[in-house]
């Protein structure tokens, strides 16, 4: 069915994409894999790094820590997020729209902000800790397992909330009414109809929570204090001044990637068997609650959202406090901001430039790859699509060290440049927009393109004048979300940055480690502000009030 003329343009694009992916994905991953077997000093291939990992309990403990904190966080986010979604979609709750926006903001604001906000509240010299100890109550330590778990749950339950409320809205009211008319009680209806219908979606959300928790670097790094998780281990083994080993870090990275791939396909296998295509003609109407039920519903929603929002409020508040190093001297000022502008103006600029360039490249790649995989279906197009999606499940820390190992030496030396950070952002975040772009393209009838071709526009021109223009509005909303993620990126940038390519997220991290909480809060506030503005833009552009992932 392919015409020769079409083939030429798209064949060139396809070959170009393959070369790019070979260079910036396959080759680095291969390097990582090779590096995990190869001892640079002795020049011998062996399993020594793997042996070391499994033989020393210190390392294996990191794996066990990661597992336990991630799985428990996943379970708790479901327990917190699913009821919240149910209450918010099925019952009339005043201020619902506002709550929903706060939930999204807390999800999209930089991940490690939660960690240090909670330190400022519940840490050794935290505000709440001090007040409580003053009246004689000693609260358990925020550091280590419990603190990481708290931050993960409050940070990640919005995923479950968004997935489940999306699924609940897609259930047509007739389904539940049918159950009721057949004599089911309310609880029975929820257990036998509603719950099974949203189960696949909820599992999808749970997987996302698990992978995000497993890959998160900032939170355990700031809050862990000896409670080592895999990303922290990879980072410290890689950059560690004492006994740092790229080979060993590579081996751990390979193990964690393999593990995630197994979990990912396991979940896919379980979920695919029971996925239901649903679209509600008439979603279930919201009901008014009465009495104590109403009280507890309101209490639940507002408390959860308040807890999730505290870090953001805390950060903004602290940014206006007068500080002297880690000490808050009392009183308010803009000193933190002036310090930031004086010392860290570059990193703000860097963040914007890098993320904007990255998002433009992402959009171009997305346009091309989704076109190839939808309109030029073939084995190779499919392979391109799969390859581009792969980084979706690779932790940022792994991408970071992979890139640094690979582009530190010939043929292409990129370490310390802006390019390496931009490339890592592109490779990491393209998967988040490619699915929605593919879905948009499926909705555009191919005859629109044929009309343009028959009017005299060659295929390439048709693509840019018609197809791309029609796809852009849809891609754009996804691109805003990808951009927010890119500008908040820490886990890969922390490994790849150099003095001149420091980004806002890295700067916050560095300030937190130095315990200059004032300046950290000021940059964080700028970052949160940026995110909120971008989100408002997203809502305005899409005309929606919510985000679907």
């Amino acid at each position, binding site marked *: 069915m392919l015409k020769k003329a079409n083939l030429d343009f798209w064949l060139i694009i396809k070959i170009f994409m393959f070369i790019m992916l070979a260079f910036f994905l396959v080759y680095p991953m291969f390097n990582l894999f090779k590096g995990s077997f190869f001892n640079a000093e002795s020049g011998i291939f062996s399993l020594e790094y793997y042996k070391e990992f499994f033989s020393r309990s210190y390392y294996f403990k990191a794996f066990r820590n990661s597992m336990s904190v991630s799985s428990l966080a996943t379970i708790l986010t479901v327990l917190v997020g699913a009821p919240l979604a149910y209450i918010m979609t099925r019952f009339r709750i005043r201020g619902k729209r506002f709550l929903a926006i706060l939930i999204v903001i807390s999800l999209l604001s930089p991940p490690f902000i939660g960690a240090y906000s909670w330190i400022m509240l519940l840490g050794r010299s935290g505000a709440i800790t001090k007040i409580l100890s003053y009246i004689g109550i000693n609260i358990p330590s925020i550091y280590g397992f419990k603190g990481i778990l708290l931050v993960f749950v409050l940070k990640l339950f919005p995923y479950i909330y968004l997935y489940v409320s999306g699924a609940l809205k897609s259930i047509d009211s007739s389904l539940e009414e049918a159950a009721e008319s057949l004599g089911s009680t309310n609880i029975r209806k929820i257990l036998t109809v509603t719950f099974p219908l949203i189960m696949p979606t909820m599992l999808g959300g749970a997987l996302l929570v698990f992978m995000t928790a497993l890959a998160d670097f900032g939170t355990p790094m700031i809050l862990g204090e000896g409670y080592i998780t895999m990303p922290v281990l990879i980072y410290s083994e890689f950059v560690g001044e004492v006994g740092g080993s790229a080979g060993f870090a590579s081996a751990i990275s390979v193990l964690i990637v393999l593990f995630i791939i197994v979990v990912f396909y396991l979940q896919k296998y379980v979920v695919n068997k029971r996925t239901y295509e649903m679209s509600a003609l008439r979603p279930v109407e919201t009901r008014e609650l009465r009495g104590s039920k109403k009280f507890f519903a309101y209490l639940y929603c507002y408390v959860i959202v308040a807890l999730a929002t505290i870090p953001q409020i805390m950060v903004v508040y602290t940014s206006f406090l007068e500080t002297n190093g880690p000490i808050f001297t009392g009183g308010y000022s803009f000193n933190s901001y002036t310090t930031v502008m004086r010392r860290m103006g570059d990193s703000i600029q860097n963040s914007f430039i890098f993320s904007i360039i990255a998002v433009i490249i992402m959009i171009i790649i997305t346009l091309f790859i989704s076109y190839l995989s939808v309109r030029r279906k073939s084995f190779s197009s499919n392979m391109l699509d799969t390859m581009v999606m792969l980084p979706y499940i690779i932790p940022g820390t792994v991408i970071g060290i992979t890139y640094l190992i690979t582009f530190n030496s010939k043929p292409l030396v990129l370490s310390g440049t802006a390019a390496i950070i931009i490339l890592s952002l592109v490779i990491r975040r393209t998967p988040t927009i490619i699915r929605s772009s593919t879905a948009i393209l499926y909705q555009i009838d191919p*005859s629109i393109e044929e*009309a*343009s071709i*028959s009017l005299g526009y060659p295929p390439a021109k048709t693509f840019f004048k018609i197809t791309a223009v029609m796809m852009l509005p849809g891609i754009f909303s996804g691109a805003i979300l990808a951009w927010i993620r890119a500008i908040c990126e820490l886990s890969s940038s922390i490994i790849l940055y150099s003095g001149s390519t420091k980004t806002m997220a890295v700067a916050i991290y560095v300030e937190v480690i130095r315990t200059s909480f004032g300046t950290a809060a000021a940059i964080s506030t700028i970052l949160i502000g940026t995110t909120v503005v971008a989100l408002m833009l997203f809502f305005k552009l899409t005309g929606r009030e919510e985000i679907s992932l």
Partner: protein
Amino acid sequence: MSVTINFKNTTKKYGDVTVINGLSFGVKEGEFFTLLGPSGCGKTTILRMLAGFNSIEGGEVFIDDRVINRTSPHKRNIGMVFQNYAIFPHMTVYGNVAFGLKVKRFDKEQIKQRVDEILKIVQIEKWRDKYPKNLSGGQQQRVALARAIVIHPNVLLMDEPLSNLDAKLRVEMRVAIKKIQNRIGITTIYVTHDQEEALAISDRIAVMNDGKILQIGTPEDIYLRPVNVFVATFIGHSNIFDAKLVVEDGISNILFNDEYRVRLNKMYGGSQAVKVAVRPEDLIFNKNGVGLKGKVILSTFLGQRINYEILLDKGSSILVTQDITNMRKIIPKGETVHLSIGAEERSNIFNETGENNLILKDNTYAKKS
């Protein structure tokens, strides 16, 4: 300015599956030519081969005397109207129609002049600056038509352009299309599965089934003298009777059964089993008790005419149409009637397999298949 189109031995394959095998036919200058057939018969495939969106696996396609097999679709200068209109949603009506002229590097003034002229012809000048989402189906169809003809294409191709419109608008638009085509005199190939539409709009029709052309002819030819039973039943309705052609003493008779025979004025071959096709309007209720005996099982009043479904004593059920002007009263359900053939010369006699019309001497297409 108008061109001829010729398919010579053209073959289309999808992988190993041949969907069109060595097809040949020609379209005359300025002709309105329709490909008519049930869905999946290959009519759209032929259209898309001409447009360049389907490759050609064998034979040639000519526009005038130029082979276009290897010409890129964007260089064929073909105007195409799609089933779903394929209007560019991000451009105004003007933008849509001007789109094809822009790539041909006309200057602005010329573009404006030609677009405005064509908008007038298709009567959408009022909606010039509207976006497609604000237009009705009929208006969008007119935009699609304007966009296709404004580039002065060699050929105009239309792929079921009316199938998304409601019944009334469909009739209105087909008249509009026919008039516009007459006015600009462009060679047009039109694809439809709607036989009534084909009859109404075409200069000539090619009736297709299963990747083959069964018959090419004017609407009258095809309706009155279908080459085989498929065409007879696909175009309009035909009652098909199993009968015998009996030649005795140089006189041909059609024996329907023991009770009814029709004498023919001409010879159409020797004695044999035949199939006879009679249109519902050519059967009359015989008051003298001559003809095929049956019982009325359903009557449908349609205003201008009445349709009767009649179950013959010899098993099969047939359709009879009575014009309201010839009617005294509606025959009630259950009444026994006799049906005879009103106009023998309008009936068609096929061989036993239904593949050949014995009345037609030159039966090229039927013989080929």
